[in-house]
């Protein structure tokens, strides 16, 4: 299986591919509040955002993922179909499924809702731990540097962290 968009990575044997994909750390938990296909969608989106999955990189097949995670093949198909509808991945008939070459901007309203929830959680945890607002901002800046290669970022780091 070729790894597209990974020129700096040495060619991997098929068996290594599996190990590489597990860097994405996919796992399912049947007793989670989210159904399994949603858990998969979220983890794949997180892996794309965190650059464990590169743009244009091939995803495991329905069958491979279904057998590895011990879930129904239709559940994998559903997660992939939904991600494709959202524009995160593309499937090419007979060739496989790949992370899209360019990622969609999520609907701003939906994004803002999620982000404002996450921001509130972050702040309340920080305040509980005795951090000041300035220290939280410093934490965010540090996190931003570790995401330097994040394919989802819209502006290059040099412009934002001036």
């Amino acid at each position, binding site marked *: 299986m070729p790894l597209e968009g990974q020129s700096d990575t040495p060619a991997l044997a098929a068996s290594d591919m599996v190990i590489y994909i597990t860097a994405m750390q996919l796992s399912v938990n*049947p007793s989670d509040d989210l159904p*399994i296909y949603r858990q998969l969608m979220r983890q794949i989106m997180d892996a794309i955002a965190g650059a464990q999955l590169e743009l244009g990189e091939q995803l495991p097949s329905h069958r491979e993922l279904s057998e590895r995670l011990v879930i129904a093949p239709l559940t994998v198909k559903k997660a992939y179909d939904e991600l494709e509808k959202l524009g995160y991945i593309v499937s090419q008939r007979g060739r496989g499924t790949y992370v899209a070459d360019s990622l969609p901007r999520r609907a701003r309203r939906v994004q803002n809702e999620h982000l404002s929830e996450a921001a509130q959680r972050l702040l309340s945890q920080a305040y509980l731990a005795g951090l000041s607002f300035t220290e939280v901002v410093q934490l965010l800046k540090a996190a931003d540097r570790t995401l330097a290669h994040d394919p989802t970022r819209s502006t290059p780091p040099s412009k934002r962290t001036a």
Partner: protein
Amino acid sequence: MTPLLSFRDVKRSYTKSVPVLDGVSFDIGEGEIVGLLGRNGAGKTTIVRLAIGMLFPHAGTVELFGLAPTTHPVEVKRRIGYVGETQELPGMWKASELIALHRKLYAEWDGALERDLIARFALDTGKRIGALSKGQAQQVALLCAVCHKPELLLLDEPAGGLDPVARREFLETTIQLLNREGTSVLFSSHHMSDVERLGGRVLLLNEGRIQVDRDLDALREQVCVATLPSRLASDHARLAELPGCMRVRQLLDQIHAVFEGTPAQVQDQLVQAYGEENRAHMQCRVVPLEELFIELLGGERLEAAA
């Protein structure tokens, strides 16, 4: 298209006037995976036994591939596979002898799949079946149920009594078969995590009828549990009459109600019914299948009389 399995208003009882199934109807189409859920005695095994022709319906019709399994046993059995919880395998036979018998019985027997499964299960087929562990005996039963490439696999609590490792191995094999053969499956289970992993559609049996027949993911995302203080909804009937209400039960000083709809929709509906000032007291959330099962079928716990 003829469904693979079809139940039409099926009734069956073991004791007169105590129906186990009291008008059950459903179809299973090609490629479907259907989980049969319900409490002990709800009639899951009865449904599977009616489907394989081990029982006659007292009323209604049961058809596989458009044929009644009781009048066309051979045609039907050729196209289905069955694994029960307590499979009656001949204990004195060697596993290899039982497999050989099945190989002879079925023209479509897939020898490659047989060898594959024997290797995968690391089965010692020279052993007598009675000397195998429960998990291994279930693996022999599964092998005998699938190597003729059935169109419909009927699994009645196949992992009942297996330890977690053996249960997971059984699930892994079932999923590999789904991938390779695209078989349709009707399975009953008390293990909600297995049901979530197999996905597909859920039939919930209660009091002789099908209470829920729905896609698992829809059940997980479009059905939610509302909790209200019992002082708010002391009139259960009023709550139960709200649109989409599937169940109301009292748990000490709280009322739990199962509703169709997303948490936001149900919350709005409850606020309309009980007033904006009570919004903060009414919580709606989606829950995992195991909790939903208990919310739908669990008993009440009334407050002790003051």
